[in-house]
């Protein structure tokens, strides 16, 4: 493709061509409209004063358009606009690249971890659990996806949009924390089965295998209970539990704020409105009860 052809296919060339065509079209349309209007005014003198408010408006708008087109036609402006237009796909591409990189990184982490799940910790030991998968997912979400939800919103609906984004963001964070908590909660099940396997082996070697299923069940439930007790006392579990509860509460809070917008539109009092009322009622009742007691004691 020659340089001339490349230029002709570029966005600045297309924009310039479109502006010229649009100006030509609306210019001829205006002329037509003016001539029609002039004929009408001749026939109805009573409408003389009403002339042309729409026409004046149109004229003003068209003049602005023409000024803009002529301003754009200067080589400097065209160059600046073209640079912006060239940059746009680049920005989009960069955004997509960041997202994909994050996704691939996560996938890579998953693949690495998938093979090792269950073999990372020893039975009855829950220290130093490898929870990198969830941390990686959280990090990627916060760095690559979550930040888009925190872009400041503009205009009249700004606060509403921000509340929607906040609810979505908190929901996503809750999903990650809940997944980590559930993973930890599942570990004792997995470990208890492994210990059961070892017990089977021992019993088999000793020739003490029972033919009563209930014996195995009792053995398993006892092992499971022990594993849970060990897990529950580990700092990792306490941390995961409190994070899961906190993130659930953050999401519920954000959801309530969002719902409150809907309730307000329907003229239904929100929790916040009711809480204010309840507080006043509480203080009032407390005061009355204290006074009542004072009177009774006299």
């Amino acid at each position, binding site marked *: 493709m020659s340089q001339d052809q490349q230029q002709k296919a570029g966005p600045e060339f297309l924009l310039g061509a479109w502006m010229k065509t649009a100006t030509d079209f609306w210019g001829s349309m205006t002329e037509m409209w003016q001539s029609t209007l002039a004929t009408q005014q001749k026939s109805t003198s009573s409408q003389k004063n009403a002339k042309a408010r729409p026409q004046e408006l149109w004229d003003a708008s068209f003049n602005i358009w023409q000024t803009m087109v002529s301003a754009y036609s200067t080589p400097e402006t065209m160059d600046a606009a073209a640079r912006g237009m060239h940059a746009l796909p680049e920005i989009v591409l960069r955004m997509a690249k960041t997202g994909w990189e994050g996704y691939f990184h996560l996938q890579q982490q998953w693949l690495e971890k998938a093979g090792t799940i269950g073999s990372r910790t020893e039975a009855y030991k829950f220290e130093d659990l490898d929870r990198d998968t969830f941390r990686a997912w959280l990090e990627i979400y916060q760095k690559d996806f979550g930040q888009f939800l925190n872009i400041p919103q503009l205009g009249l609906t700004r606060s509403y949009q921000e509340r929607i984004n906040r609810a979505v963001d908190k929901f996503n964070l809750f999903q990650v924390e809940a997944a980590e908590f559930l993973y930890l*909660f599942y570990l*004792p099940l997995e470990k208890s089965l492994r210990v059961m*396997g*070892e017990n*089977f*082996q021992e*019993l*088999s*070697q000793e020739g003490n*295998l029972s*033919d*009563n*299923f209930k014996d195995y*069940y009792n053995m398993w*439930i006892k092992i*499971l*209970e022990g594993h*849970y*007790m060990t897990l*529950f*006392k580990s700092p990792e579990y*306490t*941390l995961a*539990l*409190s994070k899961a*509860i*906190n993130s659930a*509460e*953050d999401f*519920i*809070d954000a959801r*309530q704020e969002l719902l409150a917008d809907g309730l307000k539109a329907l003229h239904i009092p929100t*929790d916040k409105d*009711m*809480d204010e009322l*309840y*507080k006043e*009622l*509480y203080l009032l009742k*407390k005061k009355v*009860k204290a006074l009542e007691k004072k009177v009774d004691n006299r």
Partner: protein
Amino acid sequence: MSQFKIPVDRILAKVAEDAERVRTISEKASDVLLGPLDTDISTTPGEVVYREDRLTLKHYAPIGGDGPKTPLLIVYALINRETMLDLQPGRSVVQNFLKEGIDLYMIEWGYPTRKDRYLTIDDHVNGYMDNVMDFIRQRQNLSKVNLMGVCMGGTFSVIYAALHPEKVKNLITTVTPTNFDTEKGLLHIWFKDFDVDRTVKTFGNMPGDLLNIIFLLLNPARLMIDKYVGFLENIDNKVFVENFMRMEKWIFDSPDVPGETFRQFIKDCYQNNLLIKNKMEVGGTRVDLKKITMPLLNIYGRFDHLVPPEACELLTRKIGSKDTEDICLDTGHIGIYVSSKCQKELSPKIARWLKERDKIEQKAEATKSRAKKSNDKKSKARAKASPRKKKKAGNQI
């Protein structure tokens, strides 16, 4: 790992043997589940004698005679309901107390709604509890009443006894946490880092369902698996099913806990352990355990995973009274009230202890009156011997 052989053939043979039994159980189970089941709880008749907001006070008249002279007020926790003390006929602490001749009052806290979120520990202790105590004292024409607290209700009772010692004759605490600085109970570990401000901000009150989830997570193997396996094994046993359903009804009947009360309980007790250090403030007054000068009976469970012995046993050493007794029963948190073995121990022990305190009081009163009489006699004798002195005394009066 070397190969091992599970006797699948023998297990399968056993399963086949059991097949007939399983079929019979299934048939009976459908009869049991589809037939009428008596699963009512809290059936002992009582009279509602006082109401305030969501609170009701029930009075139970004693069945047996020769009980303690002073009525006993039971204060249950705000978590779960007091129906646990009256689960079923023959397994009811309330009925056992009545048989022991105890004149019984019990507070029912009811179900807090969002409007109750601002109620504090002060409102419960210096408000509701004090009003109830005043009501009973007035109704029975007494200056003091016996007070018994259960779990968190016990903590409230300890606070009440420290703030109003003049109104409490004897104090009984059962599975009552007062020392929160222990790593033995999982709740004590988990609540240390619990963000209670966030919870109260989000929910207003602490939801009963959330508390239930936390309790289930304390022992999921037993509470979420084994319990229901046991139910399935006994599903053809009508009495077992009825008892199981009663317990199930009680466990999942969980009122919310008023937000501000929960916030203070977690922060002052679980996170800062202020009560046992005499640093907790309720209604602007410091709770000084040394002011608890009445006799104290402190009962707790050796295998209690919610309120371990370490959380209970320190109390008797920290209060002002010298008449204290610790009893550690070989059971868990709920077992104290519902296990057949403890049913036979708990109520008779409490009744006996209260009656002994009556006797000690009678003895003390008799000694006091004897001393008074002898003092009067001595004074009269002195007056006879020295009329001038009498005159002087008379002048002084």
